[in-house]
């Protein structure tokens, strides 16, 4: 039996704080494996998933990664959501020369030869979103995020980016932090994990937005979005007054938010469930059907949606399959060489994705606004955006003086 199966690791948190997000990725991965197995497997071998629970506990992630590589000897692992979980397993993959596919938007600034990032890089989410908002005539940007590395790094990039687009410092909200010489080094308002009280921040945003043309760029993470948006709605702020663009709310997270109070808020991802392509339709139908029949315990069957991290996980599986088939081997070095050749692509539910030499994908980026039913209506798309992990320092402030509010004199 062992001869015609290949072990594949699934390393996600199925318990603890991150389970609310990561469980769906486990589900879609199992679906992808079943789909592949039905159509003959990979190199004629059936995929045998090894599912382990990282339990939102970072040292446990490292332990589980070791187990997958050293005990189970999996050919590849799909997993991790948070950056810290990825950081904790990275040395393990490098030491054992393993292969990890990582599918969740992240801050970049990392490139390991053993990890392939199907995730959105900052330039596949944050900067296109800002481009869109600038085009919509937004002049003031309030940067809000959770107090950890992804938001901080993203906002560092965004600060450079906004300045490069001529947005004056005065129009960047959330607070600036300066070094001893008075030079602005970072911007944004940060709240701790599990923060539950957004009264003051919302009051601040309300003031910030009172003069119009403002928006909020939110890198708030997971759970904290709910209290934030509830407070936002309760304070009477709407997307018309001051839209919020969030990078961490996908359709899946939306299930926990009162969608009717959020209509019109923006999201930016490389996939939306509402994409009207045959590939996506097929994906959704097959996934829903699979959910009905699967017997894996603990899989939620009702009211499921699809979202970008799920699709990027799914894409990852097929990219790996394509690479293995091209390399005609499961050997990590061979698979990596093929993946790095820039020739492996897959036409997934979110459009065609291609693995580049820098271990990131080229893919389409979509901006959408939320609708009452918890979906996104696509407003704009950017095609074939090249993922770039190292962005900091690439945007230079525009040399034009910061534009002061123009006085409109009747001419």
């Amino acid at each position, binding site marked *: 039996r062992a001869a015609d199966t290949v072990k594949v690791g699934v390393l996600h948190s*199925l*318990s603890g*704080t991150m*389970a*609310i997000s990561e*469980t*769906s990725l486990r589900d879609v991965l199992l679906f992808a494996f079943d789909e592949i197995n039905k159509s003959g497997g990979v190199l004629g071998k059936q995929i045998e998933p090894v599912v382990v629970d990282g339990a939102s506990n970072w040292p446990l992630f490292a332990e589980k990664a070791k187990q997958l590589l050293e005990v189970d000897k999996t050919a590849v692992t799909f997993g991790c959501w948070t950056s810290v979980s990825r950081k904790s397993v990275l040395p393990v993959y490098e030491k054992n020369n393993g292969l990890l596919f990582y599918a969740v938007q992240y801050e970049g600034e990392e490139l390991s030869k053993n990890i392939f990032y199907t995730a959105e890089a900052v330039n596949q989410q944050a900067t296109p979103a800002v481009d869109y908002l600038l085009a*919509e005539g937004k002049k003031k940007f309030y940067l809000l995020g959770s*107090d950890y590395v992804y938001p901080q790094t993203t906002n560092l990039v965004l600060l450079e980016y906004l300045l490069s687009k001529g947005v004056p410092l*005065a129009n960047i909200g959330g607070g600036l932090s300066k070094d001893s010489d008075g030079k602005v080094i970072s911007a944004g*308002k*940060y*709240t*701790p994990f599990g*923060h*539950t*009280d957004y*009264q*003051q921040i919302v*009051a601040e945003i*309300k*003031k910030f937005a*009172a*003069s*119009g043309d403002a928006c909020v760029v939110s890198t708030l993470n997971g*759970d904290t979005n*709910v*209290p934030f948006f*509830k*407070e936002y*709605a*309760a*304070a*009477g702020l709407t*997307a*018309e007054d001051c839209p919020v663009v969030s990078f961490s709310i996908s359709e899946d*997270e939306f*299930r*926990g*938010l*009162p969608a009717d*109070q959020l*209509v*019109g808020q923006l999201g930016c991802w490389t996939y939306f469930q509402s994409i009207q392509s045959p590939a996506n339709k097929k994906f959704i139908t097959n996934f829903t059907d699979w959910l009905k029949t699967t*017997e894996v*315990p*603990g899989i*939620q*069957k*009702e009211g499921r949606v699809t979202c970008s991290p799920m699709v990027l996980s799914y894409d990852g599986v097929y990219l790996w399959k394509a690479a293995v088939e091209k390399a005609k081997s499961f050997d990590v070095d061979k698979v990596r060489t093929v993946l790095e050749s820039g020739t492996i692509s897959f036409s997934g539910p979110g459009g065609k994705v291609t693995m580049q030499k820098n271990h990131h994908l080229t893919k389409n980026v979509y901006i959408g*606004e939320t*609708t009452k039913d*918890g979906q996104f*209506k696509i407003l704009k798309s950017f095609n074939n955006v090249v993922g770039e992990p190292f962005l900091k320092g690439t945007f230079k402030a525009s040399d034009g003086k910061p534009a*002061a*509010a*123009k*006085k409109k*004199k*009747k001419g």
Partner: protein
Amino acid sequence: MLRFLLLAVLCWAAPVLAQTMPDSEVRTKLSAAILAEDEAQEELIQTVGATGSPLAAEILGLWRQGSVYLDTTADGDKIPFIKKDGASLRIDTGAAFTPESPTEAETSSKLRKSIRTALDLMEVADPDPKTRASAIQKLGGTQNDEYLPVLKVRLEMETDKKVRKALEAAIATIDLTNEDDAVCIAAIQKLGTLKNLASMDTLKAMITSEEESDAAKAEAQKAVSILESYSRWVNAGGTLFSGISAGSVLLVVALGLAITFGLMGVINMAHGEIMAVGAYTTYFVQNIFGGGLSLSMFGQGLKIPGMNLTGSAYQSYFIWAIPASFLTAALVGIALERGVIRFLYKRPLESLLATWGISLILQQLFKLVVGPNNVSVSSPTYLSGSFIVSDVSLGYNRVFVICFAAAIVFCTWMLLTKTRLGLFIRAVMQNRQMAACMGVRTERVNMLTFGFGSGLAGLGGAFLSQLGNVGPNLGQDYIVDSFMTVVVGGVGNLIGTVCSAIGIGTAAQSLQAVTDPSMGKVLALGSIILFLLWRPGGLFPTRTRSLEG
């Protein structure tokens, strides 16, 4: 009379001149607008808006909320319609009809924004002063001098004090862009005296702007300093309010624990999960009032039908959810007490381990029964919105929490001090054996007390569903805070819990206001540490003469 005047006013102001339009024409225009695209659509909206017709207002309002539908007939025509009392009414004729394949008419934020402006203009004459004031403020914020005439005429006839103030501020804000320096300066002064905070950013920008005269800059500087000192007061007021409301949330969350832990001495690590039971109950009640819900329990599908209520009947779900959460959580609590905790009264420290185990089990059960994601609980209309009291905004939800906290504290206090049961509870908690010797049915009292404490936790959960996440981890977010509140107040002391909740809430919010949320939290914890070092028995330590006390 009023309407006539307004129409006259609007005629000057509207970008496209329009005569009073008969309803039929309004309908045609509206339906055209709905079917049109891009600029044409926006123009049509402004035209219809300028009529001031209440019919237009109604339909535009519906459209904005996404309640306008399109029916595509067999031959590809599209008919816009609305739904009213179960019937579908065509917009172009107002007649009822049976749609063939209805879809929602699309809206986008741009579109909604232009509808919003059209509606704002109409709302300047709305009978409700609040609506009027907010519409006026928005018009002022655009600094678009085309709106000036409308606002000025309105000012002449406006009697409501608040609306007048809004009108004056709006006019002054628009006047800031006036090229006549005198008008501009007058406007700056006006904004200063009106203490109009919304104009602060604009005024600040004027100070550094190269296009302003020095006199105007100086005036702006003065106005800004007036506004800044006023804003400090407003901020302080806001902070105080958010402190009290945050404290009330803490109180609602910790009160149940004050009973189960404070009075009974059970280190109840499952307190948070019992709150989650309350929150999930609210979610269930909401869905039963609405469209029902389907669960997949351990892979088995389970459909719970809903009552499909709408409007205020649906909105009243929360009123029902409150007692329901109390009861469900109380039942869960009683089951816990009977099943596990009653064996541990003599070993209080062990209750920590057992209830921690229970909390793990419950968390995973939530995941398996309701699903790993958070679920969505919407706020009923009466809990969203806010009062504005001299520029401090008091959210209804927050005011409600404060009142609610006060109410449950009062009830709990009455129960514990004024009833027989209360007396027995305290007796049993202080000396179980002796209470039994007095004839108190200790088993029953234990059960009821734990049930009551759990019920209170359930109420806390019902409330949190209005403010934050409802999901398997709900409890974990609050457990540390709950224990801290109870202990800082002095274990076993209800009044202490109240004071400590309000105190911690206010301190945390004030510290957050002067630093940032992360640092604020660190400092709040720091002050708790200092406080406990200063008063090692909590706010109201209990004393006895026994050596162990």
